[in-house]
């Protein structure tokens, strides 16, 4: 159990900076998820914590103790590797027993712990096999098993369930979360799947090109993204972006788009803090903050044409074609509009965001 702090951490591979000036504080016992697209420096961050990668600048602290120069074995962390890194010449049992053996545990206890972990991961029947006789998902579960047999200070999971099927993934999300809660062990969990991060983490660190974009609870990251990039990355289906202008109509600020105009609420106006009129902004609105109908509603609506319908079981995503863009709307599966028909989209006035058109910084 430990609190993990990143203080101005940099990772450079030669001239290339993979992690830039990272500052994160992960309280004892909490679940931190590092979320970002491929190549944004998630694994590099993780490997620095594990001691497998030299920290180019800055400090990483466990409970206020600087661990930069500590050997991996002295950091007392358990890691699930992105590429499994199983021991090919050892059976599944021996793979999972290895960390316990290296730390001098006795045979009976090892057997106990391994059997228990294998049961949790549903790989009890595979204990005698060698890694090359396992499927990708089974290997991944063995890798998780090797990490959880011990009671380390810190768990480091690098995309641990990326190769499982959807059902098993949902199951493992629950198991991992539950295990972390029960043991109370601090967890750093790397993923590129925002659903995983949203559903499991206490805190999400969103990274992009080596830079930390936002650090916050899943709710904050989803509802109050700090910039357009985070807003676009988090949420599925992704947020719609439309380039609009702020115009002043007799003291009332309006968001205007060639297809529609929307009056700003007073608190929204305040957030613009003098970005003033005639400024270009990017409007961002999630598909579930939009409503679609085939008949013209009373309130101001965006007029468009149905482009395509996607039925997702309990929901339907309708892609609507506007003059210069397409937006996606989430609606009930009963929606009956056929492609090509005219439709009307209304915006939930409380649930949209405005971003600076140049910097992408969020106004609200």
């Amino acid at each position: 159990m430990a609190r993990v702090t990143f203080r101005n951490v940099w990772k450079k591979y030669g001239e290339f900076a993979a992690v830039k000036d990272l500052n994160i504080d992960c309280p004892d016992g909490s679940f931190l998820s590092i979320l970002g697209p491929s190549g944004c420096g998630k694994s590099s961050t993780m490997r620095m914590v594990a001691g497998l990668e030299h920290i180019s600048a800055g400090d990483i602290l466990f409970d206020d103790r600087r661990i930069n120069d500590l050997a991996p074995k002295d950091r007392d962390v358990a890691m699930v590797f992105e590429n499994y890194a199983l021991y090919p010449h050892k059976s599944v049992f021996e793979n999972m027993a290895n960390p316990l053996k290296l730390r001098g545990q006795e045979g009976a206890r090892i057997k106990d712990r391994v059997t228990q972990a294998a049961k949790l991961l549903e790989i009890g029947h595979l204990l005698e096999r060698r890694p090359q006789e396992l499927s990708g998902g089974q290997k991944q579960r063995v890798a998780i098993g090797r990490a959880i047999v011990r009671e380390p200070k810190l768990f480091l999971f690098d995309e641990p369930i990326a190769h499982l099927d959807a059902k098993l993934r949902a199951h493992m999300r629950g198991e991992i979360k539950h295990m972390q809660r029960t043991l109370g062990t601090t967890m750093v969990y790397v993923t590129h799947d925002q659903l995983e991060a949203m559903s499991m983490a206490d805190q999400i660190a969103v990274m992009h090109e080596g830079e930390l974009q936002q650090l916050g609870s899943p709710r904050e990251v989803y509802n109050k993204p700090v910039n357009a990039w985070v807003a676009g990355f988090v949420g599925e289906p992704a947020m719609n972006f439309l380039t609009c202008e702020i115009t002043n109509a007799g003291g009332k600020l309006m968001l205007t788009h060639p297809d529609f105009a929307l009056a700003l609420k007073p608190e929204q106006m305040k957030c613009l803090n003098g970005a003033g009129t005639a400024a270009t902004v990017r409007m961002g609105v999630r598909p579930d903050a939009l409503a679609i109908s085939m008949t013209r509603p009373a309130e101001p609506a965006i007029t468009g044409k149905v482009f395509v319908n996607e039925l997702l079981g309990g929901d339907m995503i309708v892609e609507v074609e506007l003059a210069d863009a397409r937006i996606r709307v989430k609606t009930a599966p009963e929606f009956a509009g056929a492609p090509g028909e005219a439709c009307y989209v209304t915006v939930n006035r409380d649930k949209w965001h405005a971003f600076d058109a140049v910097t992408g910084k969020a106004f609200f």
Partner: protein
Amino acid sequence: MASRDVVRYETPLTRGFRWFSAVFIALYLVWTLLPIFVMFVSSFKDLLEAFKIPAVGDWSGIGVFFDFTPTLKHYRDLFLNLDFSRYMANSLVAAGGSAVISVILGSMAAYSLSRIDFKGKSDLFFWIISTRMAPVVAVMVPLYAIFRSLDLVGTLPGLILAYTTFNLPFAIWILKGFFDNVPYAIEEAQMVDGATRFQAFMAILPLVAPGIGAFIVLCILFAWNDFLFAAIIGSGGAKTLPVATRELVQPQNIQWGSIMAAGVVTTLPMMLLGLVIRRYLVTGLTMGAVKE
């Protein structure tokens, strides 16, 4: 994960090729095994019987080869009168000793060269193999002078040192290739699991076992069959089997029977070694451990 069963498709070409290979292998076996067979059989024959040979083309006379009363007198002679047990022990110690030392030093050096980047690494690597570029005879005289002044001539440690000098570069070269094929992630996992660097190194040794096995065979064969070093550096105190066998050829009297028996005694251990080591030579152990 793909299984290793080979899917075969039969065509006239593959059938023809199969026949051709069968015939080729049969001829090749006769070519290679016959001399060994003759040596083996002759070592159990009395001198007169050993020289009973049918006339060329007389295939029915082939039975003459097998028409003898087996005798162990050549072997008795070797071990009781000629002190071959000592020469054999010398051979074993020299070959085994240099193999063990070369494997220990070689695997550690190869591991470092494979895993750690440092300045001048490729130069160092090239220098290591370049020590083997000069033929052995060319360096024999200076080597003898050095060993002489160190009082190593005619001693087993001297012979082991000489063989190690020549085997170590090979060990490093062979084993580096094998270490390169072991994913670094496996050691990283070991270290996170709680291993020291050295423990992690030890843990991946089973994965380079085919390389170590192959090298041990090469190394022992080199030392076991070597004549030049043994004759010059080992002469006197550390006489090995090939040198002792050579001494059975005397100007007035070539002891054919003993030579054949010595040949058998020299060859058999190497065959046993081959059988024992064979099961370690299985490659492909690292398959499937790491996602590529």
